[in-house]
């Protein structure tokens, strides 16, 4: 059984020896050219003139292209064609590409790109939420509003009410490998593009548009990325298009990689949000009605902002049953980088809103925040028989429905039938010793005037599926060669998350082979077309299923042929341990493959999968956008220095649900890394723009991602032992994004520590940098 085993990443040997290749490592033909963008120096305005002779005359420069030199589409947008690759005369943010330099080396291209003399006419930049609201600068015609019940009435009738708001910053992806692309012109107008992208099909589509050719003339290959986290879902298009256009113009291969500063200045980041809330609740802290207004700065182009903002609305409940809820979402257009996908895709922001509400209610009532959280949890899932092939699943058309009265729905009308957070929370609070430690911390704080500790246990419920329903599909291509070796290809991309390993485990299991027999190959639009981005945590769910379908097609053909050959029953042919058992006969898999080949059996198949049971109306905000939910909880303890605002994470305990894990080692890695990244978002990672719209934190010197010593002193991570109730690949669950939100436990532990400093409520904003923590301490001490 290769599935469920903790085997190392498929490219581990390549990585530890330096042989694993990224785009920038691919050997290039002689004469390859290098690209750099000339960038705008103002945030909003118009180009009056571009004097580029100094750029053209700079050493090594071969060509300089502006928008006028682009023969076909001048667009890098993944959505509504509002993102010119090179400025069309309008300037939308500081750092926007204005012209493209093609030179003989990376350095020459970059140096020349600084020599443009751009005359511009400044306009007032819209930078903040206030600016955008005042100017009504937004995407879509007005705010999106979803409502369940009569929220205003529920709040008005509630025994307790409070209101407030929380600001949360964006986040730079800081994938360690910057954006990169390489385009190699072929014969008859063909173009081969190597791109560090989560979305090869999108790159193919955008390059084809830019070259004025059908998609079949463009091939995109992605072996791996050095991290993606959503930052390579759409942001790689500009480089790939630039390379392809320049390669077409010059007839030579063209390569582009952003230097880290350029990368941070040009590309989009996580959306920052402000969430204002009004809530009504009872004596126990149970919410009776809640009203959220979410404001987000989407930046200059639409990109993926609508689905991101939708997902923030979809996670405004996190794990809590809201009898009445109203969510209003403003998607604001600002003169900043175009905010984009980032692990969680708006979900973390929406969740942080309701978690703040929980924390504030608990403070108001003087109750333990965990008790308030638990009081608001959805009803527990009822036991249901599951297992491969039982065909039973909650929520699906053929599943036994629990009694209607017990099923609670989300604020968007989806039944929550798989809720396991009562059990997870119970187990985690026990293993972490939550109650005892909470009491001990109270004593410790009473005895320590300067250092204060805090603890928080926060849950995560995250919806799995693309909310744009048609994206929930995947394809695979599998070949068995006559020597019994297997070639595996699918539409998912590898960015470190271990997708290739997991999917190869599926293939190995279907054929009863060791994983070494499965050759994992680069994602390639020539092999599997029309793929979705590897995103929404869906990589293994979708591609694993598609691969299983392809393998099973071949396996069934082999079984039929072998059964005929050995006069056995096809249904009784077994593939296990590298052997094929056909009735009384057992032959090695390689021999079986050879026999099938000699008997003219096709040993190649495609596989296809689409997620069942989805229906979603994003305008109404109603339906079943998710196949299932993934769950987890984290308990963190911090200590804060009340004189400086500095703090440390002392201990974190995590219990996370990966269903029946395909590879526990890989899933644990996702959980650990996701938690640290999530904690980074809410603590040290601060993006700062100045009043001219210039991003001031554009390098690791000023933008602080977690370092090796920042993680908790004690770190206990465990997988929840349980199957996915939904019929996913081997009953596993998606694990890419959900653990990110476990980082919220650190934020609320900080809030708890600060709350011990006085009587006021620490309405802490994120990221909780030491400065913000210190300000919150002062406020609390002053009793506000």
């Amino acid at each position: 059984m290769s599935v469920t085993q903790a085997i190392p990443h498929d490219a581990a040997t390549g990585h530890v020896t330096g042989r694993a290749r990224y785009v920038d490592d691919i050997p290039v033909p002689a004469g390859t050219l290098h690209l750099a963008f000339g960038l705008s120096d103002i945030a909003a305005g118009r180009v009056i003139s571009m004097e580029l002779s100094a750029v053209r005359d700079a050493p090594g420069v071969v060509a300089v292209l502006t928008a006028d030199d682009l023969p076909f589409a001048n667009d890098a947008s993944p959505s509504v064609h509002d993102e010119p690759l090179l400025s069309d005369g309008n300037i939308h943010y500081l750092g926007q590409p204005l012209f493209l330099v093609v030179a003989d080396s990376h350095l020459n291209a970059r140096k020349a790109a600084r020599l443009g003399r751009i005359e511009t006419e400044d306009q007032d930049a819209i930078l903040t939420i206030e600016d955008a609201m005042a100017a009504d600068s937004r995407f879509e015609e007005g705010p999106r509003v979803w409502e369940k019940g009569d929220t205003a009435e529920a709040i008005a009738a509630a025994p307790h009410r409070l209101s407030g708001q929380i600001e949360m910053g964006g986040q730079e992806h800081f994938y360690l490998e910057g954006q990169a692309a390489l385009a190699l012109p072929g014969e008859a107008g063909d173009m081969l593009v190597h791109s560090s992208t989560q979305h090869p099909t999108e790159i193919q589509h955008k390059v084809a548009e830019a070259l004025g050719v059908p998609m079949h003339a463009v091939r995109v290959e992605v072996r791996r990325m050095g991290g993606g986290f959503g930052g390579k879902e759409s942001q790689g298009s500009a480089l790939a298009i630039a390379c392809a256009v320049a390669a077409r113009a010059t007839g030579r291969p063209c390569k582009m990689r952003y230097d880290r500063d350029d990368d941070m200045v040009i590309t989009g980041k996580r959306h920052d949000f402000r969430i204002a809330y009004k809530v009504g609740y009872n004596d126990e802290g149970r919410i009776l009605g809640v009203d959220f207004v979410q404001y987000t700065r989407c930046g200059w182009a639409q990109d993926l902002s609508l689905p991101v903002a939708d997902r923030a609305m979809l996670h405004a409940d996190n794990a809590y049953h809201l009898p009445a809820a109203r969510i209003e979402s403003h998607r604001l257009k600002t003169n900043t980088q175009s905010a984009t996908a980032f692990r969680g895709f708006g979900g973390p922001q929406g969740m942080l809103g309701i978690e703040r509400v929980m924390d504030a209610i608990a403070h108001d009532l003087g109750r333990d925040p965990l008790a308030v959280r638990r009081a608001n949890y959805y009803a527990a899932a009822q036991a249901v028989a599951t297992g491969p092939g039982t065909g039973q699943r909650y929520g699906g058309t053929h599943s036994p429905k629990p009694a209607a009265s017990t099923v609670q729905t989300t604020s968007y009308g989806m039944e929550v039938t798989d809720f396991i957070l009562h059990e997870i929370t119970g187990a985690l609070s026990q293993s972490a010793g939550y109650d005892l430690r909470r009491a001990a911390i109270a004593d410790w704080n009473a005895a320590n005037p300067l250092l204060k500790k805090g603890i928080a246990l926060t849950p995560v419920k995250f919806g799995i599926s693309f909310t744009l329903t048609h994206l929930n599909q995947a394809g695979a291509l599998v070949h068995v060669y006559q020597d019994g070796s297997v070639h595996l290809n699918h539409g998912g991309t590898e960015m470190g998350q271990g997708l290739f390993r997991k999917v190869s485990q599926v293939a190995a299991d279907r054929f009863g082979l060791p994983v070494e027999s499965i050759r994992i190959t680069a994602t390639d639009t020539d092999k599997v077309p029309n793929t979705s981005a590897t995103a929404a945590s869906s990589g293994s769910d979708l591609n694993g299923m598609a691969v299983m379908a392809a393998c099973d097609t071949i396996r069934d053909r082999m079984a039929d042929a072998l059964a005929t050959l050995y006069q056995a029953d096809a249904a009784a042919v077994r593939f296990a341990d590298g052997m094929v058992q056909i009735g009384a006969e057992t032959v090695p898999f390689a021999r079986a493959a050879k026999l099938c080949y000699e008997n003219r059996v096709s040993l190649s198949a495609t596989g296809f999968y689409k997620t069942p049971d989805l229906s979603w109306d994003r305008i109404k905000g109603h339906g079943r956008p998710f196949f299932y939910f993934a769950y987890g909880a984290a308990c963190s303890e911090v200590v804060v220095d009340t004189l400086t605002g500095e703090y440390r994470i002392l201990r974190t305990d995590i219990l996370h649900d990966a269903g029946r894990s395909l590879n526990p080692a890989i899933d644990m890695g996702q959980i650990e890394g996701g938690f640290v990244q999530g904690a980074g978002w809410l603590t040290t990672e601060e993006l700062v723009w100045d009043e001219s719209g210039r991003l001031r934190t554009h390098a690791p010197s000023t933008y602080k991602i977690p370092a090796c010593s920042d993680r908790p002193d004690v770190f206990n991570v465990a997988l929840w032992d349980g199957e996915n109730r939904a019929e996913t690949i081997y009953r596993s669950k998606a694990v890419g994004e959900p653990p990110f939100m476990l980082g919220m436990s650190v934020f609320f532990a900080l809030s708890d520590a600060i709350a011990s400093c006085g009587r006021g409520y620490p309405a802490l904003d994120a990221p909780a940098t030491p400065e913000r923590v210190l300000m919150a301490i002062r406020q609390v001490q002053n009793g506000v």
Partner: protein
Amino acid sequence: MTTVSMTVNGKPVSAEAEGRTLLVEFLRDGLHLTGTHVGCDTSQCGACVVHVNGEAVKACTMFAQEAEGAEVTTIEGMANADGSLNVIQQAFQDHHGLQCGFCTPGMVMSAAALLKENPKPSEAEIRDYLEGNICRCTGYHNIVKAILAASGQDVGAIAAE
């Protein structure tokens, strides 16, 4: 342009380099040793760590000419003589000390330098030493574990699982 000569992974090499050519460019573009990665270009991420005369150096922070005559070791030179993984490489593989792998060569090189200086580092010493190596994927847990294992110490001591 001048010719720069050094010993890289035990082999004498010479290539043309400008005065401003960085060691990392010399290795990657000149010698096609692309295992040394560029993550930040500004001496902060540690993806480009190599050994120069036995010392860990960020190759984006040193000119190729400064390494004239030096003994340079890159990740490509870390395996055992028979081509098998050395103990640090093996530990990173076995303890899942990598995800996207982009930081891995620098991590392995830093770990090797640490273990030379301090063959049995404590967890705190490992974390402290790796301050200049950024990993965005793993949360560092398994990296620390791998280094503890490579130094022959009990990884059970560091919690989790």
